[in-house]
């Protein structure tokens, strides 16, 4: 069996990035200079992941103010509005306000993939998008479309993002649906979420696709539905509520998908207890029948200070190595 590591998503901003963004907002820095600075800072973050031996890397998403914003700013008929708490974090996102059917004015991912996938070698480059169900649920719909119609429009735009990202050289597509961990989510919601995700990845070939649910563990009835998704891998936040996560996984397995385990805690700053994580891994692997398994962070690394986001990257790399050795698994650390 093969094991690989990959950070779930965006990174915290260094002092340098915070400053250049602020200066740009104040009109003191030109857009070109801002872009160059972001590329430099992203290269450092990619380098940290590559040298930690992570098979798939992200660019850090340093210029994204929240998971939706880059898409909202690249689409017509939707604008970012007031702030709302982002799940149980002391972090706030701007609620997208849809006033009509969204249309893309440009693509978010392809230029990033072209630029960063070369810097990522020998690791593969991962593209992360918000899932259409989470996107729609966390927006205000002031358009004439129903919830389902708006969600389908969003899914269509994300599908073209993903298709172009794959053509540009992405190795992995991750679709984030954190809202599916909310206890209020019903089975029908999950069915809709999975149908939308299936529509996004329908024609995608040759890259790994992941459905990622985090901040908590989905209910078992929701999880049951997720097992029918056509993605290659299912990624779960294990460490936020280990007992509930283990109950779910030991009870239902991964339904033939490759499992991706959020073991490194991305919301605390202490060094994770690698031995304890090995124990948790051991209890999951006993009943696991897949050919490969992924290890990841419990959520994005943007909720802790910058230096700790780098530290957690290293810890994830260590964990993959330790687990590969302890359980005699093949450690995948290069893709391209």
């Amino acid at each position, binding site marked *: 069996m093969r094991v690989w590591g990959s950070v779930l998503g965006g990174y*915290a*901003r260094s*002092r340098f990035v*915070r400053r250049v*963004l*602020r200066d740009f*907002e104040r009109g003191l820095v030109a857009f070109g200079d801002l872009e160059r600075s972001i590329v430099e800072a992203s290269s450092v973050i990619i380098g940290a992941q590559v040298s930690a031996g992570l098979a798939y890397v992200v660019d850090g998403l340093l210029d994204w*103010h*929240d998971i939706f914003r880059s898409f909202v700013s690249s689409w017509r008929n939707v604008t970012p509005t*007031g*702030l709302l*708490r982002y*799940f*149980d*974090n*002391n*972090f*706030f*996102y*701007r609620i997208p306000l849809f006033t009509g059917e969204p249309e893309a004015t440009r693509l978010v991912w392809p230029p990033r993939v072209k630029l960063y996938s070369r810097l990522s070698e020998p690791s593969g480059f991962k593209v992360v998008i918000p899932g259409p169900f989470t996107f729609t649920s966390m927006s205000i719909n002031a358009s004439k479309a129903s919830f389902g119609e708006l969600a389908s429009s969003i899914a269509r735009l994300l599908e073209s993002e993903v298709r172009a990202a794959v053509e540009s050289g992405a190795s992995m597509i991750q679709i984030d649906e954190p809202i599916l961990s909310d*206890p*209020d989510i019903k089975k029908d919601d999950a069915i809709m979420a999975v149908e939308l995700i299936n529509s996004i990845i329908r024609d995608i070939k040759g890259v790994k696709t992941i459905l990622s649910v985090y901040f908590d563990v989905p209910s078992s009835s929701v999880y049951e539905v997720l097992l029918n998704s056509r993605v290659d891998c299912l990624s779960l936040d294990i460490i936020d509520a280990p007992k509930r996560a283990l109950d779910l996984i030991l009870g239902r397995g991964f339904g033939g998908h490759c499992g991706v385990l959020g073991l490194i805690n991305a919301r*605390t*700053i*202490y060094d994770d207890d690698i031995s304890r994580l090995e124990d948790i891994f051991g209890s999951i692997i006993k009943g696991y029948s897949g050919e490969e398994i992924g290890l990841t962070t419990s959520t994005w690394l*943007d*909720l*802790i*200070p*910058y*230096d*700790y986001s780098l530290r957690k990257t290293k810890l994830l790399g260590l964990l993959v190595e330790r687990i590969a050795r302890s359980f005699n698994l093949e450690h995948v650390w290069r893709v391209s």
Partner: protein
Amino acid sequence: MAYSVPRKFPTTIVGSYPKMPQALEAIKKRKSGEISEEEFKEIVKPAIREVVEDYLWAGVDIISDGEQAREDMVVYFAERMRGYSIGDWVRVFDNEYFRKPIVIGRVEWISPMTLDHWLYTTSISQDRPVKGILTGPYTMMEWSFDLYYRDRRELIIDLAKVIRREVEELIKAGAQYIQVDEPALSTRPWREDAELLKEALDIIFKGLEAKRIIHICFGRLERIIPYILDYPVDQFDLEMKNSNFRLLPYLKEYGFNKELAFGVVDVHSFQVESIREIEEAIDTVMRADIVNPEKAYVKPDCGLKRLPRDIARAKLKNMVEAARRAREKY
């Protein structure tokens, strides 16, 4: 002569008020090390005076210092107790950050953190009672990093002991209303979290001779109502207007039997609710048949700090008038 709080529908506030320019200036100077803590306490006072003038103008019965000295509800206390270090920058939204505090040692009370401004506010409140308001142990724990305890229960218990000590100072000075703010609780609405906080509240409130209040706002409170109703408090101070009084049937179902301070104005909206609209809000709560007018406190959903001052004032004024009319009606 002592101010007499109305027997029915007393009006109050949750605590924070828009920051006056003097307060912002003082916070900046203290951060840069230009002034000492003692000087800081002094130069915030004119800001508190302005807040109190607004409360008195609006006619609020039970008031606060407007939390003018508190840059952030967690950072303020973390900077003033032992065991915390000022953390590194963590994003709050867009390109805005705060220094999320880190627990690096045993947390301990050093000296009074809120007493000076409580005393000052009381001296200018024209005898209206002033709430002693403290950030609760659960929120202190959830909204800081921990590098020392690595055990949530141990940390929350020690935080509760620190807060208890501060409460004792306030009560010794004459405070009759003690409020603990727990906005973080509703963001993680799980039974184990609710029960953890109960244990901490037992430490904070045991044997106190004062009105014991807990403020909780937003989020998914309905999910943990069965586990919080036996908290050792006299009053639940809840957000209700923003969530359209969704909680009322749950309170009814689970046999709510404490005092209820309910939000009648939305602190996220710049629109000033009319007197009529606030009267209707009070009617909605009374129709739910959970508390009688003697146990019903009228107040905004949450702190007013994010509103422009003129809007905050106008909301309070209408709220007080609506409560006055409700006293005639009920």
